[in-house]
């Protein structure tokens, strides 16, 4: 068993995912964290003045929202597929629906298709209501098969 697989198992057992978040520096820079509710993972980007872009509203920088969603997807793939390595991003696409205001942002991911090497993941990000997303995204990741 690889050390990453062990880390994932330990995180699931303890409910503390910070050790995994620390693997990706930018996830720490913007302050991503996650919590498990039954089988569902909810990712959270706490309100942080360093994440703001346009000072007028003020609004969270669009790039930060996209990065939060991409990293959420990467962690979801990692947590759900027991891959021995961090997934590699192939492509990413985001649609922005509403401005992300200066408050907590949440994201949930769904693995739409898990192939042998490539996994497709969709992401929805919201602040007030999940039915009123601030953005939706999808990504493809190259995932190392468990048995190789």
């Amino acid at each position, binding site marked *: 068993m690889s050390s990453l697989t062990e880390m994932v198992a330990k995180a699931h057992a303890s409910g503390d995912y910070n050790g995994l978040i620390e693997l990706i520096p930018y996830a720490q820079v913007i302050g991503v964290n996650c919590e498990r509710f039954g089988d569902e993972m909810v990712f959270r980007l706490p309100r942080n003045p360093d994440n*703001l872009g346009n000072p007028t509203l003020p609004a969270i920088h669009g790039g930060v929202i996209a*990065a939060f969603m991409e990293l959420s997807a990467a962690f979801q793939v990692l947590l759900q597929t027991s891959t021995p390595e961090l997934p590699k991003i192939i492509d990413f696409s985001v649609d922005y629906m509403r401005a992300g205001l200066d408050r907590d942002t949440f994201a949930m991911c769904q693995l739409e298709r898990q192939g042998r090497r490539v996994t497709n993941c969709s992401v929805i990000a919201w602040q007030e209501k999940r039915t009123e997303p601030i953005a939706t995204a999808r990504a493809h990741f190259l995932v190392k098969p468990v048995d190789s």
Partner: protein
Amino acid sequence: MRNPEIEARCQRFMDALAHIRKLGLRVIQADERRVTLVLPVQEQLSSGKTNTYLLGGALTTLIDTASAVSTLCVLPEFEIAPTLDLRIDHMKAPTHSRPLYIQAECYRTTRSVMFTRATVYQTAVDDPIAFGIGTFMRLGTEVVDPKMRAVVEGEIDSYDADYPPVAKQEGAQ
């Protein structure tokens, strides 16, 4: 041809964004259509325990920012142009010990929409790390916050400064 006025305007816009100040993004050069930025090597992005996906997410912010900044090169007057969508294709993993450069171009502008494309590279622009395609919506100059416009046009130093600028009083002690 480099345009120092546009370069300064792009940098002032970026400096007004808290997150971009945190990342230390700098304008290398800009003209009436495209901009080149650099994301310097920095401790906060290199402290990872693995080499895979080390700059995960940071590239996305870089591409989003450069694409938005490229719209400033084209617009005669500052406008707020929110991103409608952004798509990124990753060609290869970046080397974390080198700065990341990005060239972004706003290649088509209509009354309502602006289209951008961007290339991220480390050694040369023809050896790409990632490509980004973005679409921005023009909201027009009438909805621009006058204070933000003043920051971008260099009339005041920062968004925290007084606006309208307080005139220096003659003869004041």
